[in-house]
């Protein structure tokens, strides 16, 4: 059992390593992608400088909390897209029948698919996020916690995308929708939760898991709360389990490319 897990981890690690190696073949493109993504993210700070000229705090956040919020979101998004970029294009793979080669390998199909590509610019996102967390003035303990939240955030985000993407086994049109939902989640995750009240607040904590990805972590970093930490960790695990279950249930309906051949 233990060796099986070890072997699986080894294969995933190799896969991720090779993905990144492939992207680094052209160093100019690689470096340009990474640096421009950092600049790209940094430009958003202008928006917040402008807004904080108008008010000293927005939704209970000062510039410092905004930096933590952005740091967590960018780093989680980055980490998830470096390791598991394929999850975000899963519906396309399912619909066009491109899972075959993962299905004939004696390893987990899900992990094989997930780790089969990477997104270079996400390295820029991750770096930017971590830099922001470093300069946001957290204590050492706070910074270490924030790294933990980057991981839980990445896991939750990936699981959410996987859950929606796997619906493509049933509904062809999911492709658009799942992308929209993920981007929607990320959009919410870059604004202070204090501006949302009532139903929208409920929505952000229970339907789109923005609360679990970033709002709770920000609150915990501002003032530690063990219960909240526990919730975040458990939620990440549960959502992952649910997403994997949906994926494997759907895999029984997988049609390979036979559907497209039949259409001709």
């Amino acid at each position, binding site marked *: 059992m233990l060796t099986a897990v070890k072997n699986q981890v080894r294969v995933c690690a190799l896969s991720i390593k090779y993905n990144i190696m492939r992207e680094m073949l052209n160093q100019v493109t690689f470096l340009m992608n990474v640096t421009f993504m950092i600049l790209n993210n940094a430009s958003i700070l202008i928006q917040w400088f402008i807004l904080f000229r108008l008010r000293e705090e927005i939704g209970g956040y000062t510039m410092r909390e905004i930096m933590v919020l952005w740091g967590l979101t960018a780093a989680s998004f980055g980490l998830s897209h470096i390791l598991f970029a394929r999850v975000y294009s899963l519906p396309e793979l399912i619909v066009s029948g491109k899972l075959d080669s993962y299905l004939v390998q004696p390893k987990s199909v899900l992990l094989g698919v997930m780790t089969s590509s990477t997104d270079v610019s996400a390295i820029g996102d991750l770096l930017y996020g971590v830099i922001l967390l470093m300069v946001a003035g957290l204590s050492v303990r706070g910074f270490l916690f924030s790294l933990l939240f980057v991981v839980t955030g990445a896991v939750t985000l990936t699981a959410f995308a996987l859950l929606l993407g796997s619906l493509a086994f049933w509904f062809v049109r999911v492709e658009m929708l799942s992308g929209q939902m993920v981007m929607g989640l990320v959009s919410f995750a870059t604004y202070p939760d204090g501006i949302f*009240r009532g139903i929208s607040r409920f929505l952000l904590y229970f339907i789109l898991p923005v609360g679990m990805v970033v709002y709770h972590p920000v609150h915990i970093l501002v003032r530690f709360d063990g219960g909240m930490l526990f919730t975040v960790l458990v939620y990440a695990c549960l959502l992952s389990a649910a997403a994997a279950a949906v994926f494997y249930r759907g895999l029984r309906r997988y049609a390979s490319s036979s559907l497209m051949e039949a259409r001709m």
Partner: protein
Amino acid sequence: MDRQEKPAGLNVGVLEKRWRLPGRKYRVIYRSVLMENLQYAANIALGFFGYFVFIFIFVKLWDYMYRSPGELIAGYSKEQMIWYVMMTEMMWFGSNASAVGRQVKTDIRGGNIAYLMNKPYHYTLYILAKYTGEWSIRLPMYAGLAAVIGTVMVGPVPGFRLITVPAMALCIVLGLTINAVFKICIGLLSFWIEDSSPFQWLYDKLLLVVGTVFPVEIFPKAWQSFFKLTPIYTVCYGPAKLIVDFQPEKCVEILAAQGLYLAAGCILMFSVYRKGVRKLYVNGG
């Protein structure tokens, strides 16, 4: 009807031989893409979600920022401020301009350009016509959506008069076209560099941060005069400003600026394309 259903690239060559207005082939490209896209209307509707999220966030944000009902920020009332974002985002989502840059990039990098550039049309205009066909479906749908959620969430645009609609529409069309021209220019950089998308991001972010989420007036005075020189003024700020606060003299000014920008943009686009093609011939792709 039959003729239009064929792929665009195939029958324009035939049309060329007949006596027609030179713009005709681009109209055919435009129309065939339009037909194709009607079928994807349902997909577009699914994209409403992203738009709604953005608008929702900004309604909440400005709700929070405006403390008292009559307050003005940078000369805008709360309603105007929200409608401003709603209009710029409508153009953003309704135009899906990133598709143009991506198309040019994949055409050039994928080698498809070799076939496209020998067709009896100008590649850049072909892309432009194709893209215009795409947004002709999307934009009205987003406009409808914006009108509905705007009216429900913040109430009608203050001081809106129906008579000004044609001028606004013209402004929007010009704005989107200028934007597309610039995105094509950036896409054409793919002749020289492997991946032009980082430049697309930066250009997009400039539009987004400076021109889309806020009106230019909110920035410090010194920045404003600089922004007026960038495409922001003609692409997003101009049209949206007219919608939330229509003034005839402002309209004339913006249209004039758009004319200038469009001309300059096209000259740039043609010359970059010519240089790129020459480079392709010399190096053989």
